[in-house]
């Protein structure tokens, strides 16, 4: 690894900064590879690239895990809003049921009154 990547690792860098440093390192090696004619040098650079890629993967994996955990916490607010919505839907449904019940009750009352009038 070159000096920049070493410095980055040693400082208390954020995982994102470390990933970025590794990615730039990986690209720098690739650029060197494209200008290398020596077979031995090309092989050595290729091995270095493999090792840096492994670390990019590890960083990527950890970052993705961290962010996914944050997403899992952040979505809870939406859950609460959904409960509010369900309560509102239920209250309208209860209103409709109430109106239906009153209509039905009045229908029954009407029939009773009709019978009373006949007596």
């Amino acid at each position: 690894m070159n000096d920049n990547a070493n410095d980055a690792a040693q400082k208390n860098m954020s995982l994102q900064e470390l990933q970025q440093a590794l990615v730039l390192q990986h690209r720098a090696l690739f650029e060197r590879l494209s200008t290398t004619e020596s077979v031995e040098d090309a092989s050595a650079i290729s091995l270095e690239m493999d090792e840096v890629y492994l670390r990019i993967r590890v960083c990527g994996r950890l970052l993705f895990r961290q962010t996914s955990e944050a997403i899992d916490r952040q979505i809870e607010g939406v859950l609460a809003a959904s409960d509010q919505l369900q309560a509102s839907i239920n209250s309208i449904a209860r209103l409709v049921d109430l109106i239906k019940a009153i209509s039905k009750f009045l229908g029954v009352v009407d029939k009773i009154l009709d019978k009373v009038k006949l007596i």
Partner: protein
Amino acid sequence: MLLDRGSPRASSSGSQLAIMTRVLTLAWLFVLAACRTVPASDEIPQFRQGVASVDQRTEQAFAEINAFDRQRMVEYASSQKALGEALFEQVLEKGATDKWKRAFGLIDQYSKLLQELLDPNVREGVHTELVALGEQFGKVRNNELPAGVASGFATLGGLLVQMKAEKDALAAIRAADPGIQATFASMASAIGENDTEGIRAVNAAAWLQVLKERDAAFRETKTSDLTKRREIATLYASNMDERDAQDRSLDSIRRSLELLGQSHAELAEGRTQSAASLLALVNAEYARWSTTKSTIEEAREAAAEAEGAGK
């Protein structure tokens, strides 16, 4: 108390009721007009559709990235002295991708409830029941209610329910908005603003590994074997095209997440027209993503052809 149809008290009471109903209806209409715009039932299905499309694209992208990374690790493992499970752990692990799935599912559920609450049929249902109730009132009073009064109450009742539904919907959207913004921002950040960040960085690095392998194969081929060298060079170029297209596809997903977040913020502010425009952009992003996927497929086919030609 039941009043006789012909009684002066009954007709005076009836006309007062009619006047009161008209006044109340006008008052509520003024209140309605003064209220901030609430989402019409059109914007919510569009939002929901946008979320579903991003969910599907994200799931597909994660599967492709994991599969592609697996191939790279197989290449790396073949040069090692021994194998081990640690070599093949997924870069986007299942426990983490499940959290994305859960988040999209909860946002879909929330959108579905919004749609249900804002459904015009809800108001119609209330209106219908109130009309039936109004008719029953008329029968109990042993006369018909003054013309239009029962219908007026039913309309007013329906309006009041609609107002309540819209007010509750807006309150819920505002309550959900911080969570929605944070979630979409985190997702966009996870994908990466450019190809040196997040998932895009891992994917770009994986492609460099492929190009490195092509370069190694090229160097190992005799300079006199032009056919083979031409084939490898063609593959190298196709791989570059596929890499760039895949990165554009990931960027499109990131952009769609940002647009969905912005559209929800507009809904929370009651700005339905802005929200509708942003949601139209989400659809445009989907169309762009579909085109990019076709480019990726073409690049893959070109690479497969180039590899087949050399055999």
